[in-house]
């Protein structure tokens, strides 16, 4: 006899089983390109990924300052829950984003396709969006996302499976959705988009899978694809002479621009930062300098055309992505950019033509090679013989990872999270197969004998002016403020406030898990906050395997002074 089935109804949105209202105030309709151009004129907001187009990660707010930072305490904590996912990987379910704030509403992305709008004063969740990523999408470094962009009433975010979404900033509902990465090739997307003029600009990930890196631009309103800029030229294109004339090394060349560019509106140039060549460690497959891998690439935002470049590590065989930001600043009347590269060198360029002004080491141990003051590279060691292990400093995580430095115009100093950690690579040639990792080596990052610091550097001399030493590499972005402060998180959970002029430790708070993200600062109703996303995820086995077992966690903590 057939059993009568009870009607269970229709499945509901999971967030309906929560206190999330599903609605945020309309603060984003009025966010325009002009407002982002003048982002620092509204210091209560953090309108774009780096705080402003120049990449300085500097807040003009000074309510929290050297005199009172010792009183800083948590105002609220947002802990959405790292679980509810099946990926057991160690590098997953952690914040890597920089929170944006617009007139009291915080927009932040998380792991596994999540985007949240929060009340920036209370931390209450206003809406959430989740884009599902296939379990089997190729990811070198965790199911992470570095942040969103906000403009024109929309929140822009990329998805792990290579899409760019525009979400209604009041509800989190999709306005438009475009695919721009080839997941069958091993591409993915983790970058925080950048809004410039009428476009939202993104870059591809997948540099460990033998793809051909590219940046793309889409119309803000319609999502229409405006341009694509490949970072590895085809045969016959400028720069193609730096790749073998025969074979397909260029087609698998890498150079993925997986971090957010900076932008100079006067020169009308985007400064992209490109990743490693592929295979990462097997240079014999790709003789030549391999442009535009490991480079700053200046691109016209209206056309996507490459205008200038500077290559930080020609013919890289150490996995020295140059995806570290190019911070734009002025020095002696000159338009400059500052870049702290994985290879251990601090570069100051004239950003009008990407010519070199100064280069100097910024980490204690550099053994892969040497760059002289004119920028000439001399290679010392590298994995060049099949089966022969080679140890070198810095390791593939670099003397500085993607996590960002900061520049304080009040002090004229750069503040850098430094990693002093080596690795051993053994050349192991392999065949290329689409979507399979294509490193060309066995790699083991050191689990002992490492150190780190937050260091201040003077771009006029290239010299270190102070150092806040740590026993472990520092792996999180730095924030600096007009309160003469430098903020940075540590792998063992501490969040530090330092005197921007001396490096003296003024305050610390144990956040419960390591930091690998980008704090920002904002104010609401006259109260300044420091927003600190935490979570020990991403490629921990690459940048600090000696702390792979640290508490994982994933919380966003907003600190403020007592009332």
């Amino acid at each position, binding site marked *: 006899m057939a*059993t*009568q*089935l*009870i*009607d*269970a*109804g*229709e*499945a*509901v*949105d*999971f*967030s309906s*089983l929560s206190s999330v209202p599903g609605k945020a105030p309309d603060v984003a309709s009025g966010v325009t390109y002009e407002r982002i151009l003048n982002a620092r004129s509204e210091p209560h907001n953090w309108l774009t990924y780096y705080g402003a187009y120049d990449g300085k990660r500097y807040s003009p707010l000074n309510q929290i300052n050297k005199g009172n930072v010792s009183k800083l305490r948590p105002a609220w904590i947002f802990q959405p829950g790292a679980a*509810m996912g*099946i990926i057991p990987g160690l590098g997953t379910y952690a914040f890597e984003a920089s929170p944006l704030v617009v007139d009291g509403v915080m927009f932040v992305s998380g792991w596994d396709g999540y985007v949240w709008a929060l009340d920036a004063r209370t931390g209450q969740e206003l809406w*959430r*969006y*989740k*884009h*599902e*990523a*296939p*379990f*089997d*999408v190729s990811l070198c470094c965790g199911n992470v996302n570095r942040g969103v962009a906000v403009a024109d009433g929309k929140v822009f975010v990329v998805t792990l*499976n*290579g*899409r760019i979404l525009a979400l209604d900033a009041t509800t989190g*509902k*999709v306005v438009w959705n*475009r*695919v*721009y*990465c*080839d*997941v*069958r*090739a091993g*591409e993915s997307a983790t970058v925080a988009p950048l809004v410039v003029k009428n476009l939202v600009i993104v870059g591809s990930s997948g540099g460990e899978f*033998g*793809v*051909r890196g*590219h940046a793309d631009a889409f119309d803000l309103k319609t999502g229409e*694809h405006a341009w694509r800029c*490949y970072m590895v030229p*085809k045969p016959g294109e400028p720069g193609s002479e730096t790749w073998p004339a025969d074979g*397909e090394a260029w*087609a*698998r060349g890498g150079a993925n621009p997986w971090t957010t560019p900076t932008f100079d509106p006067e020169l009308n140039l985007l400064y992209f930062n490109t990743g490693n060549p592929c295979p990462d460690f097997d240079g014999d497959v790709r003789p030549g300098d391999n442009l535009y891998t490991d480079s700053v690439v200046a691109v016209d935002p209206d056309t996507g055309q490459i205008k200038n470049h500077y290559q930080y590590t020609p013919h890289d065989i150490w996995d020295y992505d140059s995806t570290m930001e190019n911070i734009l600043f002025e020095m002696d009347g000159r338009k400059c950019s500052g870049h702290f590269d994985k290879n251990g060198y601090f570069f100051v360029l004239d950003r009008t033509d990407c010519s070199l002004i100064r280069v100097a080491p910024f980490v204690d141990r550099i053994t892969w090679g040497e760059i002289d003051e004119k920028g000439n590279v001399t290679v010392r060691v590298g994995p060049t013989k099949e089966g022969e292990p080679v140890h070198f400093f810095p390791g593939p995580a670099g003397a500085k990872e993607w996590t960002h430095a900061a520049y304080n115009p009040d002090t004229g100093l750069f503040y850098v999270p430094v990693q002093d950690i080596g690795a051993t690579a053994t050349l192991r040639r392999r*065949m*290329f*197969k*689409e*979507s*399979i990792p294509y490193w060309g080596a066995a790699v083991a990052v050191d689990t002992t004998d490492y150190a780190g610091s937050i260091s201040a550097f003077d771009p006029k001399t290239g010299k270190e002016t102070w150092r806040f030493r740590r026993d472990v590499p520092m792996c999180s972005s730095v924030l600096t403020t007009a309160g003469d402060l430098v903020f940075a998180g540590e792998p063992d959970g501490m969040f530090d406030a330092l005197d921007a002029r001396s490096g003296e430790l003024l305050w610390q708070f144990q956040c419960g898990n390591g930091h690998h993200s980008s704090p920002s600062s904002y104010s609401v109703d006259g109260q300044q906050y420091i927003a600190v996303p935490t979570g020990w995820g991403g490629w921990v086995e690459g940048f600090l395997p000696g702390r792979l077992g640290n508490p994982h966690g994933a919380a966003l903590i907003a600190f403020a002074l007592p009332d």
Partner: protein
Amino acid sequence: MPAAQMGAFPVSEIPGIDKQNAATLGRLLGTGRAAYAEAYADGRMRATVRIPVDELTFDPRVLIMPHGGELELELINEDDNTHVVLLPSNGDRKFIGLVNHSRGRARIELDGPGHYFYYGPFGNDEGRGLVGVILVQGETPPEARLDRPPQPRP
């Protein structure tokens, strides 16, 4: 020593892995049946998934969507126990409670290609075997493909 000499054999031949409380406590992932979703003319798809009696599994275990898009699911709990199901879907996950002998519906949207897990997160039913897979076939859309010659695949 090569696997063949160690006596390795297909997972499917482990006695009892497709049963509860036999080879191990639960039912191993990778067992069960597969089926294709039916496609409507407008590109939407539909399928029925059951939870049979005392098996703590979804049937079919693997549901195949020929391409990404919208899927209408009919979920039938034939079991003598209550279950819940949490499904992946772009925008927000979908949740449904299925009391004993009940039928419900879900509309989900997924991109392709790729595969997604879904499960019954109640009383560790998922650990016992109540984990399903939605496998979305297809190629990368043309507008996202890399401009390079076709490449060798594994």
